[in-house]
């Protein structure tokens, strides 16, 4: 029997893949899936090409698995990603275009056709093949899928001895993973029924890049800050100002939005910001999804399954760590 610790996006995808490979699986999380996992607060963008702007090549390549993987369990909206910048920040748009792939440049008129509520942008980039999902719904759908396989989330381990333990507890595994660090992220959920935006939009800015992800019914997620600290306390006034003023710049009608939620959590990250599978004794740690939880969890779960079931070390396996 394989015991999986943690029912965030990593633990749930690992459990799903291991069960699909025929393993007997036990999934343990004292708090259950929910606000205690940082994936609860995620954007849910399946945007391997946009993310490549500031990430290493595996993020783009492995991230391309995500769309089809998630579509098996939850609703994936394939509306693409629109990237825009203010006139004075056109240099950032040119740089973004140089650093990414699989997009079409769009004119102001084309932007208006894609998103009529984005006004005043002369040029942008459209990543048609990208998609997004609703993270909380996706987590719930995986829980339901596992339930259908007879795998329920247990608050504590059973008395059965486990042959292997897969630790998917994110930043909580810091004690065992000396090179894991926390990167604070802050996000807002707002309701602005007057604004209709149908796909994730990224607003480039030299200091405060922002994305906005529609959740339906006029609800939008605004994210997300990236601060090199493991402090998961509260949002700062500065972060809130930056997030809200960027939204206001996309469409002043966001000024009338209701703030529904403020989310703060810590992303677990290794020094190269790529996830790793690392064996220590009989425990295997699957961690370091950083800001790519939904994007890279399927690849991470596959790497765990390859290692545990097929004894095959793929690229995410961290064999050299002392």
């Amino acid at each position, binding site marked *: 029997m394989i015991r999986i610790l943690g029912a965030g996006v990593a633990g749930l995808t690992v459990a799903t893949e291991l069960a699909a490979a025929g393993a007997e699986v036990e999934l343990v999380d004292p708090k259950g899936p929910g606000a205690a996992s940082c994936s609860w607060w995620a954007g849910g963008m399946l945007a391997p090409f946009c993310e490549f702007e500031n*990430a290493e090549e595996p993020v783009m390549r492995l991230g391309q698995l995500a769309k089809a993987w998630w579509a098996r369990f939850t609703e994936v909206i394939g509306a693409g990603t629109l990237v825009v910048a203010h006139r004075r920040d056109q240099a950032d748009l040119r740089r973004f275009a140089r650093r990414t792939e699989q997009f079409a440049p769009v004119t102001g008129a084309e932007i208006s056709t894609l998103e009529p509520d984005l006004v005043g942008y002369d040029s942008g980039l459209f990543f048609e093949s990208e998609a997004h999902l609703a993270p909380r719904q996706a987590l719930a759908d995986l829980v339901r899928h596992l339930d259908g396989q007879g795998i329920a989330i247990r608050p504590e381990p059973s008395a059965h001895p486990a042959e292997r333990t897969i630790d998917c507890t994110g930043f909580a595994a810091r004690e065992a993973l000396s090179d894991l*660090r926390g990167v604070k992220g802050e996000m807002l959920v707002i309701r602005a029924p007057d604004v209709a935006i149908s796909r994730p939009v990224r607003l480039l800015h030299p200091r405060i890049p922002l994305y906005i992800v529609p959740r339906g019914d006029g609800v939008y997620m605004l994210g997300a800050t990236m601060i*090199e*600290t*493991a*402090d998961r306390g509260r949002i700062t006034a500065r972060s809130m100002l930056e997030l809200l003023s960027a939204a206001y710049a996309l469409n002043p009608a966001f000024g009338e939005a209701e703030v529904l939620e403020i989310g703060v959590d810590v992303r677990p990250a290794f*020094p*190269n910001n*790529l996830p790793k599978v690392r064996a220590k004794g009989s425990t295997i740690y699957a961690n370091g999804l950083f800001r790519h939880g939904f994007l890279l969890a399927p690849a991470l779960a596959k790497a765990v399954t390859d290692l545990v079931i097929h004894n095959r070390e793929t690229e995410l396996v961290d064999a050299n760590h002392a």
Partner: protein
Amino acid sequence: MRAFYGTTLANPLMLGTAQYPSPAILEAAFRESGAAVATVSLRREGADGAGQAFWEMIRALNVLVLPNTAGCHTVKEAVTTAHMAREVFDTPWIKLELIGHTDSLQPDVFQLVEAAKILSDEGFQVFPYTTEDLIVGERLLAAGCEVLMPWGAPIGSGRGLNNTYALRAMRAEFPDTPLVVDAGIGLPSHAAAAMELGYDAVLLNTAVAKAGDPVAMARAMARAVEAGALGAEADPMEPRDMAEASTPVIGKAFLS
């Protein structure tokens, strides 16, 4: 090379630590460039020990750490941040940055002089981020600074040396003071030009961190500052208006 508060740098490159794609790339950029000094912003990363992992990584670079007060707009904020920095990094060095203008991030030189005095009196060794204004430079030295860091161009703009005339005048005005061009460097040629003016070091961040290949750009910057410094030491030729043939033509056998 002039010493910075008694410390001679092994290499005239100072690199910032913000905006890299990952800490692993940041570390590789330092290793490739051999930069002697790492500047670190304390303000965003949390003071209460929560930023520990990042600080440890900076310490592990094994270079001199120059904490900064980036993002501070008032004397009080800057002084508080400096105190925090001294505690976290156990160094009297502080890069004093007091922003006066939101769009250009131009330093507020009046508050800068005031904060420099307070911190120098408290025993800090202040590296003030300033403009190329000579009188402000004099006031900063009078306030206790022993280093001046004029801008090349606004922070993050990558425009190079906007006013070489004034930077040259500053070098001539303060012959014994270590001078660093801080901010505005976008290309290796900009960094080389600063060193050719006789500056003692160059401080840059975005040009490396936001390059498509930060590690390659770090190496390029290291070579550029080395080339510029060597060139300045080598007593370069004077430019002239007319050509001067490098071999004499008189008496040359030309009917061959």
